[in-house]
């Protein structure tokens, strides 16, 4: 406590000023009113083109309305999600660009954190207000105990299967990977194979990790420093994938991209796919009978009953070169206050990271009988690097598609031990490079 005898005018003003400022901030946060000093500033946001065009329209309007209310000129730009890293690299090199930048799937917090604003205050206050973040959220944005981003939503990749085909063949729902394999083996001869990308694309990175982690495998330990890929579980997952390909797929999966499984389902050929609900949603227009007969299933369990669903993370960050950092923070707080509105506008595509927003029934997915199962995913959701954080070496492993390449090699008939030797070599090389750096 301060000794009153040492309290001079300057100290008094400092303490009183800090108190008034702190009090005002708390009052403003409580009243959701942005501070007056952001008036007259501009805010530029870069994000992906959402798969629901109406979401982009809503978001642009939402941001503009917030700007009008607070005297901020807001501009929202959209680019394809796979191009966000290239644009981010350009803005980093130029030291100029947008104030808020979106990372989708490939979360580059650890690569750029020295050029990003520490927004632990926003992360902390939003978390406290909404009952905390789900456990998988923090590692996406945290470096050395500080948070450099706000997780905004993630995209689930559940099982999407054709109930009519399953019922006609007397098959059980694909609640385990083994049942999914049996279904593919049974339905392929009837002209309805399955398919998962054995190629270099985002879905392959996500899907094969879901399989591996559900089989009990892991990429790295909880610290993120030690590679755990050399395991019995990884070998079992590779053997399983090889069998799944041989028995239930056709060779086209070697050339698939992220959209191929959408088309595969929409064509009415596929018996099941493991993909985002965009694949399911779009069949409503492209093939209504398929839409009617497609069911969303929980993540299939591995041999020991474990379920891990690897989701595509999406995060907002603020560049350090931004001249409008306070404005950006205020907007992110406002956006997170409207998290559930975003989920509604995205037709249930945007899954929240905030615990309070999991109260059932959740918007859209809680009221649609076929989508209600998605409410059970948050307990099993994980991201790249599981069970560790999404470290810089893992970012490179993901961007070089090392894990999908291992599964592809196995499917193409390489000996499992040769695949392991190659994959481990790649993981070790990448980890060693980053350790040296």
């Amino acid at each position, binding site marked *: 406590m301060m000794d009153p005898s040492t309290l001079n005018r300057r100290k008094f003003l400092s303490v009183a000023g800090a108190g008034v400022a702190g009090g005002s901030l708390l009052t403003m946060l409580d009243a959701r009113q942005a501070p007056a000093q952001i008036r007259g500033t501009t805010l530029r946001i870069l994000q992906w083109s959402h798969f*629901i065009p109406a979401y982009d329209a809503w978001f642009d309007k939402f941001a503009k309305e917030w700007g009008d209310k607070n005297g901020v000129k807001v501009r929202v730009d959209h680019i394809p999600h796979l191009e966000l890293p290239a644009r981010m690299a350009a803005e980093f090199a130029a030291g100029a660009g947008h104030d808020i930048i979106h990372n989708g799937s490939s979360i580059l917090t650890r690569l750029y954190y020295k050029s990003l604003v520490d927004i632990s205050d926003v992360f902390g206050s939003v978390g406290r207000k909404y009952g905390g973040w789900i456990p998988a959220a923090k590692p996406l944005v945290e470096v050395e105990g500080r948070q450099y981003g706000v997780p905004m939503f993630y995209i689930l990749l559940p099982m999407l299967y054709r109930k009519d085909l399953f019922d006609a063949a007397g098959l059980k729902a694909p609640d385990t990977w083994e049942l999914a394999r049996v279904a593919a083996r049974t339905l392929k001869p009837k002209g309805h194979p399955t398919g998962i990308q054995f190629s270099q694309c985002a879905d392959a990175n996500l899907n094969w990790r879901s399989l591996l982690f559900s089989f009990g495998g892991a990429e790295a330990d909880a610290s993120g420093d030690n590679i755990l890929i050399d395991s019995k579980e990884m070998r079992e997952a590779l053997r399983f994938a090889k069998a799944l390909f041989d028995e239930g797929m056709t060779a086209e999966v070697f050339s698939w991209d992220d959209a191929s499984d959408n088309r595969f389902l929409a064509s009415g050929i596929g018996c099941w796919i493991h993909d985002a609900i965009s694949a399911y949603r779009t069949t409503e227009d492209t093939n209504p009978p398929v839409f009617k007969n497609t069911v969303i299933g929980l993540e299939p369990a591995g041999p020991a009953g474990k379920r891990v669903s690897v989701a595509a993370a999406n995060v907002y960050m603020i560049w350090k070169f931004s001249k409008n950092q306070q404005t950006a923070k205020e907007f992110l707080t406002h956006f997170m206050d409207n998290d559930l509105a975003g989920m509604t506008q995205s037709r249930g595509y945007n899954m929240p990271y905030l615990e309070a927003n999991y109260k059932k029934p959740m918007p859209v997915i809680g009221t649609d009988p076929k989508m209600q199962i998605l409410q059970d995913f948050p307990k099993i959701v994980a991201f790249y690097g599981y069970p560790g954080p999404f470290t810089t070496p893992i970012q490179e492993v993901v961007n070089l598609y090392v894990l999908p390449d291992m599964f592809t090699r196995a499917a193409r008939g390489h000996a499992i031990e040769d695949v392991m030797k190659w994959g481990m070599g790649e993981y070790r090389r990448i980890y060693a490079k980053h350790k040296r750096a």
Partner: protein
Amino acid sequence: MAAPLTARQKDFRRHLLIYAGLIPFVVIAVFPIYWMAITAFKHESDLYRMDSIPFWFNLPPTLKNFEILFYQTNYGAWIVNTMTISAWVALITLLTAVPAGYALARLRLPGAENIGISIFMTYLVPGIILFLPLSRVVATLGLQDSWWALVVVYPTFTVPFCTWLMMGFFKTVPMEMEEAARVDGCGQFGALVRVVLPVSLPGVLTSVIFAFTLSMQDFLYGLAFVAPGDQKPVPVGVPTELIRGDVFFWGSLMGAALLVGLPVAILYNFFLDRFIQGITGGLGK
């Protein structure tokens, strides 16, 4: 024994063989355009019908894809941006590459050959490496997020190529023609404008076409330097609005490509002879 073929029959057989040999190439060249055209007019549900022949319409053609293009995206603005950018780049390239090519080919500068090779080598540096340092240039000039940024950066790949092209072409023009012009009273510049350039017109046209089409097809620089929706060129705007996550709006995508690609292809055709002349003009020198 069969009767020997008449000259007319021989000629017919020769042509038949030539056209038979050409057919596979024509199919390979034309099929993507045909596919693009029919997809642009197909209903979304028609694209996913596996029980019918995909090479023709199974449902009545529709203009819905073009409605999406023109009423739900900034397609009109993207076309204007692309054409304006390409025109500026073609002009800058012409103003730079013609004098540079002429100087390197005709003025007997020391080390001209090596300088020419060095200029061409810069064309070989891929954009994926250049876009990072160019980002700084664009930001310093204050052109970020304006299509003017592309007018500044595109000449980095059009000028080297066209300089090299013009060099080769100027070398084919006999020195005697230029000397005769100078004897008749032309200066160096007058000889270039009145004698060398007119006979080098195919080369100049080829440079313009190259500069124009190279500017039209760039994606990376457009992506890196221009983000606002109304400032984008077609190659960046189209995937932004019509590829959303893993959802592709195939009909509109094909329509967008068709509307831009077809007029350029037709225009190209008008100058085909001169273009071939321009491309082959510098050969052997």
